[in-house]
C-alpha cells in the first residue's frame, strides 16, 4: 500500500474512532438520553398544541399542527448537530482529554467530520422518534407524507449544518467559559430567520434577505412540502443547500484552524477543572 493510501486508511480509522467514542458515551449516558428525549417531546407538544388553540376547521388545524411539528423537529435536529459540533471542544475540555485528542495524528477535517457524522446519525434517530411520538400523541393525519424526500433533504441539509457547526465549534476553543453558549445563540438566530414556525414572508425585508443564506430556510420549506403535501425533493431546495455546504465546510475548517492556532499561541488548548 502506498504512503498516501496508508495515510487515508489511518484517517478513516481515526474517523471511526470518533464515532466509536460517541457510541460508547451514548451507551454510558443512555438514561440521560431518554430523559432528554422526554423533555424534547414535551417541548415540541407545547408548540404543536398552539394549532389546537387556533380555532381552525379540523383539516386546517391538522395542516398547521403538522407545519409546527416540522419546525419543532428541525429545531431539535439542528440543536443536536450544533450541540455535537460546538461541544467537540467543550466536552473534551471538561473531561480533560482535549490535549490527547489534539496531539493525535488525526487531521482536523477528519476529527470534525467524525463528530458531524455521529451527530447526523444520532440526530436523525432522535428526530424520527420525536416526529412519530408527537404524531401519535396529537393524532395527526399525514397520509400523503413523503418521508423519503423529507429524510433525503434533511441528509443534504446536514452537510450545510455541519459546515456551520464547524464554525461555531471554534467558539469554546477561543472562549472556554462562554463559547458553547454562543454556539446555541447561532442556532437560535439561524432558525429565527429561517421561518421555523412561520412563513419567511412575515419577517421584515432585511431578515428575509438573511434567510436566503440560511440552510434551515430550504430545509424547512422542503420538508414541510414533503410531509404536508407529499412533494418530492425539489431541486430549488437542494441546490442552495449544496452551494451553502460547498462554501460552509471549507470556511468552517479554515475558521477552526485559525481558532486552534490562536488557542495554541495563547495557551488555551488545555483542560479545565
Amino acid at each position, binding site marked *: 500500500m502506498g504512503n498516501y493510501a496508508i495515510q487515508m486508511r489511518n484517517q478513516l*480509522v481515526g474517523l471511526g474512532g470518533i464515532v466509536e467514542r460517541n457510541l460508547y458515551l451514548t451507551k454510558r449516558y443512555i438514561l440521560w438520553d431518554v430523559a432528554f428525549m422526554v423533555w424534547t417531546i414535551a417541548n415540541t407538544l407545547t408548540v404543536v398544541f398552539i394549532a389546537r388553540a387556533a380555532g381552525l376547521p379540523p383539516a386546517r388545524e391538522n395542516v398547521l399542527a403538522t407545519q409546527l411539528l416540522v419546525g419543532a423537529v428541525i429545531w431539535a435536529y439542528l440543536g443536536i448537530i450544533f450541540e455535537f459540533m460546538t461541544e467537540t471542544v467543550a466536552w473534551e475540555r471538561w473531561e480533560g482529554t482535549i490535549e*490527547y485528542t489534539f496531539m493525535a495524528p488525526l487531521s482536523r477535517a477528519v476529527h470534525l467530520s467524525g463528530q458531524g457524522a455521529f451527530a447526523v446519525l444520532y440526530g436523525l434517530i432522535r428526530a424520527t422518534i420525536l416526529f412519530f411520538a408527537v404524531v401519535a400523541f396529537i393524532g395527526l393525519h399525514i397520509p400523503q407524507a413523503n418521508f423519503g424526500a423529507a429524510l433525503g433533504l434533511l441528509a443534504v441539509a446536514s452537510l450545510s449544518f455541519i459546515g456551520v457547526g464547524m464554525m461555531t465549534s471554534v467558539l469554546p476553543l477561543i472562549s472556554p467559559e462562554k463559547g458553547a453558549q454562543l454556539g446555541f445563540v447561532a442556532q437560535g438566530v439561524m432558525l429565527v430567520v429561517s421561518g421555523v414556525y412561520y412563513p419567511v414572508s412575515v419577517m421584515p425585508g432585511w431578515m428575509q434577505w438573511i434567510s436566503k443564506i440560511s440552510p434551515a430556510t430550504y430545509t424547512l420549506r422542503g420538508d414541510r412540502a414533503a410531509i404536508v403535501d407529499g412533494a418530492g425533493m425539489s431541486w430549488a431546495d437542494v441546490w442552495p443547500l449544496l452551494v451553502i455546504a460547498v462554501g460552509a465546510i471549507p470556511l468552517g475548517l479554515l475558521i477552526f484552524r485559525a481558532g486552534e492556532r490562536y488557542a495554541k499561541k495563547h495557551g488555551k488548548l488545555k*483542560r479545565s477543572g
Partner: protein
Amino acid sequence: MSTLASPSTGSTPEAARGVPAVEIRDLRKTFRRRDRKGGRFAAKEQWPALEGITFTIERGECVAILGQNGSGKSTLVRLLSTLLINDGGEARIFGHDAFREERAIRRLVNRVSVEASFFKRMSASENLSYAARFYGMTPRQTRTAIPAILEKVGFPAERRGEAMENLSRGMQQKVALARALLTAPVLLLLDEPTTGLDPRSKLEVQDFIRQVRAEHDATILLCTHDMNEAEALADRIGLLDRGRLLFLEPAADVKRRFDVATLEEAFFAATGREFDAETSEDDAYREVFG
C-alpha cells in the same frame, strides 16, 4: 528488542537514526496576562514561561527535568506535544520541526501527564480503544493489543470494563501509561507521572518506566519535581527554574559541580532558595497558564 504494542500501519514517519531524539535551541514561550489589581481593562503584560532553553536528548536516553510548580516544565512538554506554538527558537524531534511538521511529530510522540485525563464514564478498554483509532489502529489490532498492554502495566483484567471514575488514581495512571505505550511512541513525554500517587503505586509506575526503557525503543523526557524519582530513573538531570534551564548533566556531575551531597542542596546552591519553598504569585500564574 520487543515492542509493547505497535500500530504497525507502516505509515509512522521515520524516527531517523543519527539525529538527536530532541534538539531544542533558544526556545522561548511567553504568555500575556492582565495585572490582577488593574481590573478588567488593565493592559496585558508579557509573561515569560520559558526563556532561551537549549538542550539535546539522544535516542534511547532518559532525561529528567526538575522544577518546582510553575517552573515551565508543563509548557516545555506541551510545546513538544504540538499543543503550544513557540514565540522564538526552535525544537526538533528526530529531525522534524515541532512547529511546522506537526503531523509527523504526532505519530512519534505520546505523553502521560499528571492528570489521567479520560472520559470518566467510559471504561479503560473503551478509552484505550478509541484513542488507538486516532493512531490508525484497527479493531482487529486493538482486540489483542489492549488486553496485552493492560496486563503489562499490571491492570487487573476483571476491571477492564469498569468506568474510569471508579478506579483509584494509581489505576488510572496505569491506564494512562498503557494509552501512551499502545501507540508505540519513540518519544515518551512524562509530565509528573507519579504526582499524587500513593507510595506503592508510585513505585509500580517507576518500575514500569524502567521496564519500558529496557524493552522498548523509546526516548524519555521526564518532567518532575520529585528529585529522588529523577535521580533513580534518568541518565541526566536538568533544573528548570522560573523558565530558565540552569543545568543539564548526570546527577553525579551536578553534585560534584556544586560540591553537595544531594540534589536539594544543588538546587539551593544554584538558586539561593529552598526547593520546596512556597511558590510566588508569579510562579502560580505560570502553573495555571504555562
